[in-house]
């Protein structure tokens, strides 16, 4: 395919187009991915998550500049929320990536979260394949920082960086949502603000070190001034080495891919089943009964599932 050839030759416009096609869920896009697939699987995929405004984009900017100096080719996928009311989105992460944006070889793509069937992971996975085809060897995903999305993003990444700020006290929710558990590297950014040391200690005390043989580092940073970036780069290197040593055959990836495969399969089956059944009278009848409070939800679901997928 012409498009694939161009992407492999490093043509950014073609790569951008293919990412859009995946975002739009187009068949030809998926076919192109299948052709690109043999050229993927080698990049280090890093996810970065944390509360809004904690400094994720600024950190990525500084990381991309340093990694580029080291000769790495960087891809960045920046995900922002979609407005539930209008379905529109304001994608503003690039504003804080001014340095990276100027470097040739850094490809930045903003992505609205939308309400993707299969979750944000589905579009992100496609973008990852494309960026790898484009020759990127380090791809950083900035995520929106809430709940379910984070867990999905972590399943497409090798390493997850979680960013806190000294006033993270407001982020108890994040901790509850398992944000600390998914972090392989924890960064306390804006450490120019008071309380950074205490925050680092406090957060470290929430890490369950016994359960892991990887020692999650807690790094103090001031991304705006570029401080702490070297330590994050070292930690990324160490984590990649750790993964390789402990998973000589890429076992951790196998596990994540398996999880993703079933996640995508679940959504695909749902979409197909709905297309086929939503307007059929058997199903409509059951929905009517539920709406009229003639039967309970459990009975309704059992009946409907039995019709769609008989034993």
């Amino acid at each position, binding site marked *: 395919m012409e498009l694939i050839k161009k992407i492999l030759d490093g043509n*950014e*416009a073609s790569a*951008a*187009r293919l*990412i*859009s096609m995946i*975002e*739009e*869920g187009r068949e030809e896009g998926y076919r192109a991915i299948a052709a690109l697939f043999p050229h993927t699987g080698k990049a280090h995929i890093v996810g970065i998550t944390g509360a809004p405004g904690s400094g994720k984009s600024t950190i990525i900017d500084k990381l991309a500049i340093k990694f580029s100096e080291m000769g790495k080719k960087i891809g960045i996928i920046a995900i922002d929320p979609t*407005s539930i*009311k*209008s*379905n*529109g*989105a*304001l*994608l*503003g992460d*690039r*504003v804080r990536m*001014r340095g990276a*944006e*100027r470097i040739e070889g850094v*490809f*930045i*793509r*903003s992505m*609205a979260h*939308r*309400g*993707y*069937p299969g979750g944000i992971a589905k*579009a992100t996975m496609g973008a990852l394949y494309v960026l790898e085809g484009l020759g990127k060897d380090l791809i950083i995903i900035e995520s929106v920082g809430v709940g379910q999305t984070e867990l999905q993003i972590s399943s497409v990444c090798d390493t997850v960086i979680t960013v806190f700020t000294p006033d993270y006290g407001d982020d108890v929710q994040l901790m509850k949502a398992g944000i600390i558990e998914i972090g392989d590297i924890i960064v306390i950014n804006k450490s120019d603000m008071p309380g950074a040391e205490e925050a680092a200690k406090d957060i470290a005390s929430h890490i369950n070190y016994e359960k892991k043989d990887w020692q999650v580092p807690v790094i103090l940073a001031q991304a705006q001034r570029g401080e702490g970036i070297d330590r994050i780069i070292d930690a990324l290197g160490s984590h990649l080495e750790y993964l390789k040593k402990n998973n000589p055959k890429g076992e951790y990836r196998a596990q994540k891919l398996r999880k993703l495969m079933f996640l995508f399969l679940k959504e695909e089956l749902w*979409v197909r089943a*709905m297309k086929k059944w939503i307007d059929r009278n058997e199903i409509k009848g059951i929905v009517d009964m539920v709406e009229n409070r003639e039967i309970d939800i459990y009975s309704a679901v059992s009946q409907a599932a039995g019709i769609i997928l008989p034993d």
Partner: protein
Amino acid sequence: MADDKKRIKILIAKPGLDGHDRGAKVVAQALKEAGMEVIYSGLHKRIDQIINIAIQEDVDFIGLSIMTGAHIPITQKLMNKLKEKGITDKMVFVGGVIPSMDIPKLKELGVGGIFPGGTPLQETIEFIKSKAQKA
């Protein structure tokens, strides 16, 4: 449910020395509320940077917000570079401080829509939507 439909994607860009982006941000917000996906460039972008962003983000429209009075040379440079790069699938809009006497010149340069300060937001939105349908 399924939400992988085509969306209108638009880049709102601030070229050159212009340090005023209140207007650009108001427009960006309004377009978002109208259901579009809006990429905001931030201040002081060079023309080649604006084109790079438009390529990487695969936008349908490039909206330049210019308050400095340099709208004609800036727009001319952008249109030339787009042509040079063979980019024909992105329509360019210009907004900001645009005297009405300059409008014919901008149209001649190939600009798809011109929104001088004070243009009702709804008008801008409707115009972009109508252009998107034809695309």
